[in-house]
């Protein structure tokens, strides 16, 4: 179907969906902590705009509640929590080295194409006005996962995790006009608890490893010689563990 045949609001949905995907790519290439958090907040805001537009077009008042939840959680609360923690842990100006950035962005583009392929059976079946954006929502989820896989900084991993969640929420909005309200509330509650737990973990990681670089998390492995280094350094006396 040609874009011009769609109504103004449907076109706006597609535009904002594209912007959500765009923020995913920005996050993929963003090495600095603070801009990463701000980009994540922008993604949440754009997602809320899409949700409100979908609610208006499809006349599903439930979706206004979802949009409000998104704004509270993903635009205000979680970015604020992450911001405060990164200031508290004095890492707001940290930048991590991203290896092969161009390859990474190409990988992201590949995931978008893959998402269009995955979405084929869904789009074929759907009669919804938003079906053109289903593939975009899957792409947002997969790019979030890619972000988690390639980054070694715990904050970036959390942003990837939350961005995946954004993608999932997005896909629920555009493929079925959102899930039943009770489920949405349950998911939002889980996300909130997860965000708080991540905050707790940042502090623990910092205390134990003196860094949020998850590469240092390498003590537990299936190596044949169990923990020779740590024992030599006295990090784990034999009697300590049971």
């Amino acid at each position, binding site marked *: 179907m040609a874009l011009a045949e769609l109504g103004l609001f449907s076109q706006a949905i597609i535009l904002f969906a594209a912007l959500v995907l765009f923020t995913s790519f920005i996050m993929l290439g963003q090495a600095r902590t603070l801009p990463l958090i701000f980009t994540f907040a922008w993604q949440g805001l754009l997602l809320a705009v899409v949700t409100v537009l979908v609610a208006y077009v499809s006349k599903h008042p439930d979706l206004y509640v979802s949009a409000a939840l998104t704004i509270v959680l993903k635009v205000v609360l979680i970015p604020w929590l992450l911001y405060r923690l990164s200031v508290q842990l004095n890492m707001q100006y940290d930048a991590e080295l991203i290896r092969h950035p161009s390859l990474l962005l190409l990988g992201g583009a590949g995931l978008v194409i893959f998402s269009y392929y*995955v979405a084929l*059976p*869904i789009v*074929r*079946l*759907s009669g919804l006005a938003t079906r053109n954006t289903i593939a975009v929502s*899957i792409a947002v*989820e997969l790019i979030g*996962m890619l972000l*988690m896989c390639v980054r070694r900084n*715990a904050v970036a*991993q959390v942003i990837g*995790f939350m961005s*995946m*969640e954004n993608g*999932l929420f997005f*896909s*629920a909005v555009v*493929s*079925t006009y959102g*899930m*039943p*309200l*009770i*489920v949405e509330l*349950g*998911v939002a*509650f*889980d996300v909130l*608890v*997860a965000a708080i*737990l*991540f905050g*707790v*973990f940042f502090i*623990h*990681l910092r*205390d*134990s*490893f003196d860094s949020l670089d*998850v590469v240092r*998390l*390498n*003590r*537990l492995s*299936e190596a*044949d010689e*169990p923990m020779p280094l740590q024992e030599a350094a006295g*990090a*784990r006396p*034999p*009697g*300590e*563990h*049971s």
Partner: protein
Amino acid sequence: MTLLEITLLAPLVGGLLLVFIGHRPLGGWINVATCAVTFGASLAMALDVFAHGPQLSSGRMFYIDAFNVYLVILTAFVGMTSAIFSRPYMRHEVERGRVTDRRLRLYHSMYQCFIFSMLLALSTNNLGILWVAMEAATLTTVLLVSLYRTPEAIEAAWKYFILCGVGIAQALFGTVLVYFAAENKLGAERDDTMLWTVLHGAGAGILDPAVVTLAFVFLLVGYGTKVGLVPLHNWLPDAHSEGPTPMSAVLSGLLLNVALYSLVRVKMLVDASLQTNLAGHLMMGFGLLSFMVAGLFLHRQHDIKRMYSYSSIEHMGLMTFAFGMGVPLATYGALLHMTVHSLTKSAIFVTVGHASQLAGTQRIDRIRGLIRTQPAIGWGLLIGTVAIAGFPPFGVFISEFLLLVATMQSWPWLAIPLLVGFGVAFAGLFRNLQPMVFGEPPPGQKPVEANMLPVAVHLLLVLWLGLSIPAFLSGWFEQATLLISGALPR
């Protein structure tokens, strides 16, 4: 208030109460008492279900049938016995200074919340709530894995959090897809189309096959991560070995079951729509791979809890394989195996907890001569391991034998890797077990205060199930088998 409501509310109320008083000496007792109330209510509810058949709660929020009722009892029971074990164990940990008052409060409160989220996952009728409860089960346990705050524990908890979080996110996408497929065909009542009873009743056979297949792949990856299927298993040995031992017992004995339960529930929907055994074949592949790989990893372990965690992966793989095969005999065997594995594995973890307190370490090569220092612990570990390895008088033998017969009937060639896997796992367990139990005890090793009652009860139950299966349990297994295998194409 219905019995189901009591079963669900008791752990929730207990969890809230323990937030405030969990660190007092009374806290451990309240933990036990809450679990006892939960178990009692679940037992009464089970009798009701046994007498009157499946029950749908008034708002259609909860659904209890033959498949989940016995898992509810099992969860409540193992939760209770582990709580009995955990009270003196955690007191000992406090005395050793490994756990502060605040963390003990956290531990007790989260223990109850964890039991609640598992019971909610088992009893809910809504696929979305099922997901929410599974995620909640991760969230409640992640701080318990890192309870000791050692670098290893924090690493294990972070891995657990990230891997299970990513995994379970895939399951949410799968759930959205199922909802999409259902809404497409049953659009009329929007909020009902996520109910399992609606999907399994009106939705059977009319959901779009392509979308449902896609959904199942995501659900398999998602819930499969929590089941511990290879190659998504990395979090499991870490999380099980670094947390406090009562937690390992409930994680290994219960959480994995609940994850597998979720997977089988969605498989039933998929089978009804697909009219092929595609979902089953995927599960068989992943299950057999997990079974073989975990058996090999048993040989490489140096940490006693890690070793038994790999044994859990192996058994979960076997059950996934059996549910995937889908023939009635295999399904029956898998249901029985879920029960006996839970009972045996939680008994083993309780014993392992005592053994490592006795030896002061979890390193296999430093745990020696258990049977001479403290016969109860030595025999407990020996009998438990004999049972889990599948020796005849115990229930695990019966279920594994049924699975093997089912495999020979429907997939004869796969009986060979299955037998090899049994052998490899047996060797892996016993090469480590023998010196731990019979070896020369190190000088100065003293007995510890141990409560072997939960272990004895669990192992006796497993023995009983190996000698004769009571009629009501067999009846439930048969009904559940009909339910699960009924939709399969012949």
